[in-house]
């Protein structure tokens, strides 16, 4: 797998869909491709947020700490972006991500990511658009819940 295939994967991520291809290439180039063994953690809940990950190949579970132990709340597959909220809002990890099988991911360093955003407004706009869409969806869900 080369840089080109990683760029293809990044393009599948909604947040990066509208970003200029050359910028995506830069994002991919400045990121690291890392492999996780089955059961290895990307990060644990409460850790400082230092990077976001795009899953290129494999699956990962999202785990939450509860008084009764860790419970799985979701599963992520190919082209999923994870950990981006933490690096944008500068808060600790809100969940644990653990590889559910041998998984390859692209690790986007927080510092590099923020520098790219600062440097290229067009990238920031694309992110904002995606965040706005998510908010809209959440609002719609709230409305649907309260009306039901």
């Amino acid at each position, binding site marked *: *797998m*080369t*840089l*080109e295939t*990683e760029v293809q994967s990044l393009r599948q991520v909604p947040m990066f869909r509208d970003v200029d291809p*050359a*910028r995506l*290439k*830069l994002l991919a*180039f*400045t990121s*690291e*491709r*890392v*492999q*996780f063994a089955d059961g*290895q953690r*990307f990060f644990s809940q409460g850790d400082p947020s230092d990077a976001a990950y795009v899953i290129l190949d494999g699956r990962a579970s999202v785990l939450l700490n509860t008084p009764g132990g860790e419970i799985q709340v979701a599963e992520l597959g190919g082209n999923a972006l994870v950990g981006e909220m933490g690096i944008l809002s500068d808060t600790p990890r809100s969940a644990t991500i653990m590889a559910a099988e041998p998984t*390859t*991911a692209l*690790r986007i360093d927080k510092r*590099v990511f923020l*520098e*790219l955003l600062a*440097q*290229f407004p067009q990238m920031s706009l694309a992110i904002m658009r995606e965040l706005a869409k998510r908010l809209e969806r959440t609002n719609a869900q709230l409305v649907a819940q309260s009306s039901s």
Partner: protein
Amino acid sequence: MEKSLFRYIWTHSKRDQMIICAVVLASLPFYFMSLDLPRQIVNQAIQGEAFRDGNATAPFLNLSFDWPGWLGGGSWEIFKGFEVGRVGLLMGLSFIFLFFVIVNGAFKYWINVSKGVLGERMLRRMRFDLFAMVLRFTPDALRTVKSSETATIVKDEVEPIGGFIGDAFITPVFLGTQAITALVFIMVQNVWLGLIALSVIAVQFTIIPRLRRELLRLGKQRQLASRQLAGRIAEVLDGIEVVHVHNAYGWERAEIGHRLFNLFSIRLKIYNRKFFVKTLNNFLAQLTPFFFYAIGGYFALRGTLDIGQLVAVIAAYRELPPPLKELIDWDQQRLDVQVKYDQVTQHFAEDRLGPMIEMREVAEADQPLIGTLVGEEIRVAGPHGDLILEGGAFTVELPAHVALISNGGAAASLLARILARRSLEFSGRIRIGERDLTQLPVYVTGRRIAYAGVDPILFPGSIRDNLVYGLRSKPLGRQREDRQDMDRRIAEALRTGNPIESISDQWVDYERLGVKDEDELDRILLDLLDKVGMGDTIYLFGLAGRIDPERHASLAERLVEARHRLRDTFQSNGMADLVEPFDPARYNSQATIAENLLFGVPISDEFRGRNLADNAQFRSAIDRAGMTDDLVGMGLQIAETMTEIFEGLPPGHSLFEQFSFIGADELTEFEAILRRRSRGEGNLKREDRTRLLSLPLAYIEARHRLGLLDEAMTGRIVEARGLVREVLEKSGSAGVEFYDPEGICTAAPLRDNLLFGRVSYQVANARARVGEAVAAVVRELDLQEEVDRVGLEYQVGTAGRLLSPQERASVNLVRCLVKRPDILVIDGAFAPFDEARSQQLMQLLLDMFDQQSLFMVLPNDRQAGDFDVQMRFRDGQIITDKTAAPASRAPSPEPDAPQRIAGEVA
């Protein structure tokens, strides 16, 4: 130092000066004879004057002496000589001429060498004297003395003085004799003409020096201005951070530009003046012949002066100006260096220097500093005349732990400095037992008192060098050196007033520390470093350090074993994919292409980084392997990708530095290369090819993922490896040390030797996990101490800048602790540490100093309870409280050995 340069020179070199002077005088007869011989050869042998009376032979080597008339006349023949023919005489005289040429040459050689050596010896003496005075600057003087200016003085300003010393006495003697001889000759021919010549010379000797006085003043100015320039440049460099922070580039540039203009103006004035004086001097020198021609000629026409005499006088006068001119030049030079010397001695004026440092040691005086410490009537004035301590008094029974609790003012710190003998600016008395603290000799205080202030001063060198700095008080003479070299070195040192001690001697007194040798001392150092919390850092420094197979023989022996053990650990723990080992037969995808081609570590710079692409041997090797075109092709691909994805980033952006193969300033150049190529301008130029070639050399497939390498390509690179090695080995250049799976590579860091491979970029968290595994194997094989020992060789850089502030403070602290002082004074040495760490360190010191005294300046009394005595400062008074129940001195149980973190291995 002597006030007068001449006295200084004469005091220290009269014997040599007189010997050289005598040899110069002894050489004169030979010189004159060699001048006379050509005339004899022409007249007597070639023109045949000696055979004038039809003689077939003439005497050769006839030595006879004509007594002057007033002694009765007649002649005295010492040796009749040989009777020889014309050819015989010619050959005989010619060979005598040759003989004199050789003798004169030999004289000249000896005189020049002796003068040079004399000058160098005096220069060495002067520089050493100056340096000895540098060590004696008083604290007051040190506030105004600039280090770079002092360095310029010791290095540059005394240099011309050294060059002059060889000529200081010989030149005036030699030239003066010559000039006087010519003058006397003129006087003998005609008193009046002689007087004319004399009066013009008198005018020359009065006016010229007067005019030159201005030159000297300018010279002085210039010397000061250039010294300050050197000082200013050093200041800017030392304070460069402030310049960056406040964007003061414009100001600093203008500042230096202004100074340079000043220097230029002074220089210009000097030139104008200098050449004016020169012109005037030449004019005066030519004035005398004018008088000779006009007045002498007039008398000759009137018949009162013999024409023959006039011609002789003019001929004699021609001999006069050169020595006179040189004499005046010498005088100028003399004044010049005298000015320089005065400037130098002013910098080291007596009132800026402290007393001579007593080097002699008296064994009786060196007693432990315990007993009753009594301070009486202590008065200390602040920098603005305000009284900080006024009649302070205290009594403490040593050894004790004393907290000096600051009241927010300078009192606590000042008292700490006084107790550590760092400051003598106080009045009153401080005694330890019967001894006056201020009267203790430096070798006692140096050995028995340690002081750690806010500013940890480290010298460039290894951590070990800095730690043992306080132990090097005198050489013990255990190092054997070559007898002959040593004699020569010591003889020279004695002749020039330099110290005879050698730094290659053993200076550390192991016995006093209770250790056998360097290894045991290292163990103590490592133990202390560990206690102050620097153990992990030293371990990491050790892993990053290089091994010297001679120094670290046992480590070198076991390194390969450790390497195999590590590999087994990886295999058995399922960590095999974490490290890709160096394998002579396989491509390492975690390493650069350059590393894969060399399969070794560059030793010389021409094989490092981008220089490799330009290296002729390397190029010929990859040419032979047929790889050049492939690599240039990869270079093109890299250049294309880089110019595409880094386009639009401003130059100097941190992403460039961190990720790009190409620097921001090179981007346009590579774009130009790509454009030239896309326009199809034939083959690439040689420089372009070299530039492109340098790109893939830094390419790591696993990290950069541009997909440039396929199986076939990596196979060819591995094949080319052998060829590269063969070419480099054949050319005999020792530029690369090759990897050997069964041997160590001294050019590579210790951790590379352990891993013998590269940590995978692709496996998450690989570095930390490999670090843990390495630490485990190092512990298992009991190599930790050896690794730490390599870590002690870590270079701290100028003023310790390669260390973090915490590390600098730790090294400073251990340097004090390893001395085992009777009294340790801590005054702000914990400033770089956070509160928890400071608390730990304080507790550590309290535990360690159960038999010795510890004085510590504390910002408040929160932590003062652990000390036996608390000193507070109020209204210039010292209030001493004793803790009701002194902290228990019972040895506290040994804390668990500190857990070592594994650290990153990268």
